[in-house]
């Protein structure tokens, strides 16, 4: 604990840890000092000079080292001749700060007057108007009138697209460099910079494509003026028309807390429309950030044209038909659910399956859940607390693409001194910040993890760590591979001294799933099916929030061989198209529920807009179906289902909706009244969530039993000892995940079309491409598992020459690594 320093701000005694800046000390005491360039998440730069205050320090007698006293016994104070920037001045013992004297106020007022000389004052048409720090601070601290000539105002380019997602208005920019510093210091992607100087200073990007970062949206939140705006929200609505609704991002397992802003619109026939997604502060999950996928694809799919709907009698009929089929089949029914469902949906589905005698599977190719439920993160965990003496291992995962916020959090942990070990078969963006980078050949994942302890430095870092967190992904792996990898990672925990492996905060195994709630399903005992195609044959299949037919033609064939297919989803998919009965579900933005993040944090999402007519929440549809099969299940509200989960699922014991909605004070202070300080993002008033306990009453064996309650989990086959070595002319095709893909919930994001297209193809090393007469962008035939696909060739220097990376969800199904033949579609042109 840092030493506490005592000082007085505007006469108010304040005690803050040593090293705190005056501006933060004041904020903690409830005193607002105006700031523009300063941001509590970033190092101070004192560029804008807005935070000027008077600072006095006790005069110290050099001979005695004691403060010199006035006649009245008070310490004698020495005030500086000039005002000081409170953002870059650390507190010191006995300091006296005055923020509201006439001298200080004059300084603040004059800086504002100066800033406004080159600001267009186009507030009436500015998107930031109404939630603008410059506007608010001008009202509070600024001059009533300017002494400068209006006609001499600095004019510059407006509507300049930095990229296709972010627009810059150069004349609104006050050169605070918050965006520049966010990109270089926090995101680690320094694609924004200043060019020129003085009054000509302007924000530039030279990246190709422009503003090439997956965190770009955050710069619009922390921009203290309307200079940076998002392409989707600009000229879309005024902030004061918007209602805010708390939610959780559904694009990856991080579970970023978000706020959806909604308003009623004529365009929507008077209905509610989501206008934008913004981060909601949760310092234990996403801090005050979110990635562009969450921002620009997080809710858009719930408003897609391809939404399924039925009118009331049709829905009734569909439910009755489905119930008849399921009741007939009973134990011959197979339930298949995707990780997009909420905890409440999974629980209801599990009850239905158990009572009906049906089998229920989690639809995923990412195995190892039986280990993440046993060795997962314990309550009290916060990746933000990892630092010196802690070790984080990331294996077979490209976190930048799979879970961008985890990438941010680990990058920051490494900066704080944590040992970051990144093991992957190819270069990933996290390598740059890693302490150790380990390269292996695809197929050697398990061997690599097993050999880590025996490596000299890496082994030491793992053995001697205070906390060990392991992230494992599915880069180049299928179900078998991920399961084996999870086991190897779990073995790392068991091989360590008990002091390190007993459940404790900031320790544990995290699966980098592709869906928001796979962990929740796993905690309730759901497991994937090893041979799905065989399992579906002649069965009545009830598919929820999954598109097996779209993912893999062999599964589409298998579904055609099923007795009946009932598909429940929010969007039309290949699977709903071939289903006999389709049940339209409400989107998660239209209902209540909870997701369990990869960090095992259960978090609530709330309805942002009313459910579309003719749709119902998944758990309600399941309960309806059950009812028609003579099984009475809770389907009235998500809260009532959660009460049952808590009573019946050991992992969820002690959780209530009320507890999930609890908030504690968070630092920095951001949000509506404080947006000048922390940005436009939302403070959290609706709950920080609760991490599941690692049920102490249940032994690992007991949990095994729990895990096999519904279906046997696929046997973790021993991986081959050596890497998968392709024969001559053959290449090894491995599945990987890119941030932007053609997944059901991403493809409808129109704004991201160009970003998605960048990954639509197969990645090979330039040398490999040359060998096969291919070049960047040329079309190739990809022959895989007996099927030939055509795809664009994309070059990636960082991968080995023997592999072809197949991004998931781009139309080439690849459940497990396989050997592949690559040929040019057209004769290559001579370069």
């Amino acid at each position, binding site marked *: 604990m840092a030493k506490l320093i005592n000082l007085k701000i505007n006469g108010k005694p304040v005690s803050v840890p040593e090293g705190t800046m005056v501006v933060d000390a004041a904020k903690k005491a409830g005193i607002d000092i105006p700031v523009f360039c300063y941001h509590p998440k970033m190092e101070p730069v004192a560029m804008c000079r807005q935070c000027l205050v008077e600072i006095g320090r006790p005069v110290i007698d050099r001979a005695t080292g004691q403060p010199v006293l006035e006649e009245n016994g008070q310490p004698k104070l020495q005030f500086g001749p000039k005002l000081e920037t409170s953002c870059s001045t650390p507190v010191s013992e006995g300091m006296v700060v005055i923020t509201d004297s006439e001298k200080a106020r004059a300084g603040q007022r004059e800086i504002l007057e100066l800033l406004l000389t080159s600001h267009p004052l186009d507030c009436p048409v500015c998107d930031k108007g109404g939630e603008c720090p410059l506007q608010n601070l001008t009202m509070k601290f600024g001059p009533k009138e300017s002494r400068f000539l209006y006609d001499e105002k600095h004019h510059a380019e407006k509507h300049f697209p930095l990229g296709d997602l972010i627009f810059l208005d150069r004349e609104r920019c006050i050169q605070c460099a918050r965006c520049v510093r966010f990109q270089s210091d926090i995101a680690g992607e*320094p*694609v*924004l*910079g200043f*060019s*020129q*100087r003085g009054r000509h200073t302007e924000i*530039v990007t*030279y*990246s190709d494509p422009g503003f090439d970062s997956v965190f770009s949206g955050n710069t619009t939140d922390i921009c203290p003026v309307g200079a940076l705006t998002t392409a989707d929200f600009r000229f879309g609505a005024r902030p004061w028309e918007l209602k805010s609704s708390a939610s959780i991002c559904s694009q990856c397992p991080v579970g970023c807390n978000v706020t959806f802003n909604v308003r009623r619109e004529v365009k929507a026939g008077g209905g509610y429309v989501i206008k934008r997604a913004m981060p909601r502060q949760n310092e234990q999950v996403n801090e005050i950030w979110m990635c562009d996928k969450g921002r620009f694809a997080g809710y858009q799919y719930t408003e897609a044209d391809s939404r399924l709907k039925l009118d009331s009698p049709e829905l009734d009929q569909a439910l009755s038909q489905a119930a008849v089929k399921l009741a007939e089949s009973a134990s011959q029914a197979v339930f298949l659910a995707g990780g997009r469902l909420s905890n409440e949906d999974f629980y209801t589905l599990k009850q239905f399956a158990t009572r009906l005698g049906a089998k229920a599977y989690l639809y995923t190719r990412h195995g190892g859940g039986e280990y993440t439920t046993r060795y997962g993160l314990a309550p009290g965990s916060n990746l933000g607390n990892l630092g010196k003496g802690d070790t984080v291992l990331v294996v077979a995962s490209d976190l930048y693409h799979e879970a961008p916020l985890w990438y941010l959090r680990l990058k920051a942990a490494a900066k704080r001194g944590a040992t970051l070990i990144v093991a992957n078969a190819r270069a990933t963006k996290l390598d740059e910040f890693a302490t150790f980078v380990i390269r292996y050949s695809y197929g050697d994942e398990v061997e690599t993890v097993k050999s880590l302890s025996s490596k000299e430095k890496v082994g030491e870092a793992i053995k001697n760590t205070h906390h060990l967190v392991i992230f494992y992904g599915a880069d180049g792996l299928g179900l078998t591979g991920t399961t084996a990898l999870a086991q190897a990672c779990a073995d790392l925990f068991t091989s360590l001294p008990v002091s390190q492996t007993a459940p404790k905060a900031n320790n544990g195994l995290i699966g980098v799933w592709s869906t928001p709630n796979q962990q929740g399903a796993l905690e309730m005992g759901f497991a994937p099916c090893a041979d799905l195609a065989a399992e579906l044959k002649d069965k009545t299949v009830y598919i929820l929030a999954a598109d097996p037919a779209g993912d893999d033609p062999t599964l589409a064939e298998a579904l055609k061989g099923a007795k009946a297919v009932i598909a429940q989803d929010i969007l039309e998919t290949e699977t709903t198209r071939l289903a006999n009965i389709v049940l339209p579900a409400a989107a998660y933005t239209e209902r209540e529920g909870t997701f369990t993040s990869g960090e095992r944090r259960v978090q609530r999402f709330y309805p942002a807009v009313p459910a579309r007519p003719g749709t119902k929440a998944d758990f309600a549809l399941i309960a309806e179906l059950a009812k028609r099969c003579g099984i009475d299940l809770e389907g009235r509200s998500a809260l009532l289902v959660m009460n049952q989960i808590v009573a019946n699922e050991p992992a969820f014991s002690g959780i209530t909706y009320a507890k999930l909605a609890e908030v504690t004070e968070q630092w920095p202070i951001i949000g509506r009244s404080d947006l000048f300080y922390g940005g436009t993002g939302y403070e959290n008033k609706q709950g920080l969530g609760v991490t599941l306990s690692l049920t102490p009453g249940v032994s690992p064996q007991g949990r095994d039993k729990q895990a096999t309650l519904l279906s046997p989990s696929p046997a973790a086959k021993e991986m081959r000892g050596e890497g998968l070595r392709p024969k001559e002319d053959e290449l090894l095709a491995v599945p990987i995940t890119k941030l932007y893909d053609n997944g059901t919930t991403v493809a409808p994001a129109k704004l991201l079309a160009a970003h998605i297209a960048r990954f639509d193809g197969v990645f090979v090393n330039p040398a490999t491409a040359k060998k096969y007469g291919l070049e960047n962008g040329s079309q190739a035939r990809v022959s895989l598992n007996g099927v030939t696909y055509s795809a664009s060739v994309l070059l990636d220097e960082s991968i080995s020459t023997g592999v072809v990376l197949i991004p998931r969800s781009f139309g080439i199904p690849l459940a497990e690594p396989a050997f592949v033949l690559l040929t040019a579609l057209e004769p290559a042109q001579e370069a």
Partner: protein
Amino acid sequence: MLTEKYPSEIQAIFAKYPVKRSAVMPLLYLAQREEGYITKENMQEIANLLDLDVTEVAGIVGFYTMFHDEKAGKYRMQVCTDLPCALRGADAFLEALCDNLGIRVGETTPDGLITLEEVKCLGGCHRAPLFQIQEGDMVAFHENMTVEKTMELVEALRKSVNSSPRAATA
């Protein structure tokens, strides 16, 4: 490619700096040597050499007035017209120079020889009117100038270009 064109120079520059990114300025001068400006490709190459982002390199080019990212005449004639220089007649000098060269500030002579620029303080107020001539990565001061002397210099530059391309500012 700079690495192909100036391998030994680059090696010599790298040897001077314990931290790689510090070499950005000399590398930019090197990139500017031939054409008098820095192409985006060169910025990208320097960024790759130094593990920087191209935007960071471009920011440096933008900040410093003697780096250029646009093609101009072979010689950039940069006249200071700040207050002390103006008091010594620099503004009138510049005006007369424009007339004699037949171009305005910011323009290039039709033969591509001279680009005339107006700049901030060159630190030679007491010897105004003065200008500096920038050619590639080199620069020369010309102080206590008159239009006549300047036109003679321009003539000399024109001749030297025809005989030896890099003699004028050496």
